[in-house]
């Protein structure tokens, strides 16, 4: 419903089809449409074309070693074989499982730490600006550098073992279980600031007089947090969680530098798996199928999240 609620405000809306295009293109506002058009075409080319290309390749056996150009890949048409192989590939399912493990541990950790920090930073305190900029630095560092930092920190003779008084043969990155823990710690360290930033913005958006009103009514800080702040931040919380969850599928540089996915495949997540398939095995058609499958699944998850949000905000 885009109809203006206040008639005296007199928005120049007419009884024409409503919706986005009516607003952009209708009502003598055609100028705007022509301004947007070039960008729109560019977007179509950048987004739609690679997608179609990927879809095409995913139903063939084509690899760069095939000796034919990609657009002739129909000559080695495979129907759904790649997808069938994917469904039965234990290495893919392993990578997916490990990605989910990172997600299940890293995202909640980032969320709770971020929320606690946001609550701390929502009020003024001496040195707030200084600590604020310190807080945000991990996010600014290139992930590869973060990977290198933690690679060095977690060495057997590195500072972490030294601090914890552990022997130098107590290994992190080459241990079957601890490698994953190290990766998760590094990811939490780097991305908690982003969570903090988004949640702080959301928290600052809670009307301060409503909080004051709740206080004056006798609500304790915890009661007011649960009943006033949290429900009002729902949208922001969902956005932050969806964003970070999707990002988990994209962790690459960090793991690549810290463990290369090892030991064995113990830290091989989806993006590492894809990388190895692409440049190790050169199975490009297979990679296209994996990529599309993941894109499709993530889109469904994100759409569900957004739909939930829309429903709750009426």
């Amino acid at each position, binding site marked *: 419903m885009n109809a203006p609620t206040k008639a005296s405000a007199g928005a120049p809306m007419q009884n024409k089809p409503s919706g986005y295009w009516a607003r952009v293109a209708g009502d003598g506002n055609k100028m705007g449409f022509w301004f947007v058009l070039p960008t729109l075409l560019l977007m179509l080319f950048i987004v739609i074309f690679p997608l179609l290309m990927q879809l095409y390749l995913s139903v063939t056996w084509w690899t760069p070693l095939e000796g034919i150009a990609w657009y002739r890949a129909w000559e080695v048409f495979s129907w759904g074989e790649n997808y069938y192989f994917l469904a039965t590939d234990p290495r893919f399912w392993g990578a997916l499982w490990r990605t989910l493990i990172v997600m299940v541990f890293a995202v909640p950790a980032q969320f709770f730490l971020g929320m606690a920090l946001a609550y701390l930073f929502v009020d003024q305190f001496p040195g707030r600006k200084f600590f604020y900029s310190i807080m945000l630095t991990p996010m600014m560092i290139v992930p590869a550098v973060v990977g290198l930092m933690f690679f060095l920190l977690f060495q057997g003779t590195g500072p972490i073992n030294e601090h914890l008084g552990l022997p130098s043969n107590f290994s992190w990155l080459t241990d079957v279980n601890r490698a994953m823990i190290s990766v998760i710690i590094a990811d939490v360290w780097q991305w908690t600031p982003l969570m903090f930033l988004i949640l702080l913005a959301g928290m600052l958006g809670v009307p301060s007089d409503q909080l004051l009103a709740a206080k*004056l009514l006798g609500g304790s800080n915890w009661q007011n947090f649960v009943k006033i702040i949290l429900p009002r931040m729902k949208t922001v919380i969902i956005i932050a969680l969806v964003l970070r969850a999707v990002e988990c599928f994209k962790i690459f540089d960090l793991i690549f530098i810290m463990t290369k996915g090892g030991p064995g495949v113990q830290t091989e997540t989806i993006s590492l798996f894809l990388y190895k398939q692409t440049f190790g095995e050169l199975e490009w058609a297979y990679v296209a199928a994996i990529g599309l499958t993941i894109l499709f699944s993530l889109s469904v998850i994100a759409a569900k999240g957004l739909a939930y949000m829309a429903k709750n905000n009426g």
Partner: protein
Amino acid sequence: MSSIQINNVTKKFGEFIAVRDLSLDIEEGEFVALLGPSGCGKTTTMNMIAGLEDITDGEILFDGQNLSDVRIQDRNIGFVFQNYAIFTHLTVYKNLSYGLEVKKISKPEVERRVSAMADRMSISHRLNQPASSLSVNEMQKLAIGRSAIAEPRIFLLDEPLSNLDAGFRAYMRAELKVLQHEFGQTMIYVTHDQIEAMSLADKIAIIDQGRLMQYGSPLDIYNNPHNRFVANFVGSPRMNLIDGELREESGILKLMVHGGAEIPLSGKVKSDFTSDSAIHSGSLGIRPQDIYFGKKKKAEHIELHGTVEVVERVGPKRLAYIQVLETNFLAFDDQDKLSVGDEISFCLPADKCLAFDLQSGRRLGEMQ
């Protein structure tokens, strides 16, 4: 229900002094309006009473007890915000019950009190709807009900009527007065609208630039302004305030106004101006309804001549702006006779005129 004593309270924000050495005694059950132009410090004063702002200097006592170390949550103060601060993500019921639920009051008791309050505020039919769906008028009622339900020791209202349309505002004014009688609570009401303050409050504290200008009953303030600021601020239409130099010419004391108008002073207003020989410039105040047209009825009345500049209809009356050289006088056109451009005589009764010192703004002479 509490009495409140504000003793020499000062509030500074950095170098800026928002409230200066303010003292007020508010008795139990009294309805007091803090009145002043925007930025005068009235809201800061109220925030200090509520505990939302620290006090730089001085103290505020509730029944003789200083609450400055008590957390806001435990002060039990009812506060209605200017924009109501309704919890729009909750239902009307949850809004009303908030102050009770956080105190862990039993569920049947909460239900009983919520439904009683909803009845009183005539919003029962909306209890289960989201508070965001309420009209502004209903939000106003909900905001008052939500504060009142916890039976606070005092009730503070920050310009609660300013967002309402004129018709509902008049209704709400009468309703608030009834509510105050029903609750029997000490109420403090912040407003910049002098008509609202006059019609509602038992007592009005007029504040300007952080200073208390006068504290008294509405009629006391209207009839006996202690200074030029109060005289100018209270009353609608406003009081005529004519500023000029005091000069004696051939035995007659005159107020010489910028632009050339001369007002000969006589009777009480003359003795008021001469009560302090150090005064050289003054301000003469007279309310529009005290001015009458035609020849003077008493020797001591001051007769002037001017041109009708503008005639306005203000409610049931017509208000005339009469120009004497460059000075404007407001008077009520009681007989609906005047029209623009008329040359007329009009009189200021000397006993109704007030005298102020122009420099300090202080009232001169005897108070009535």
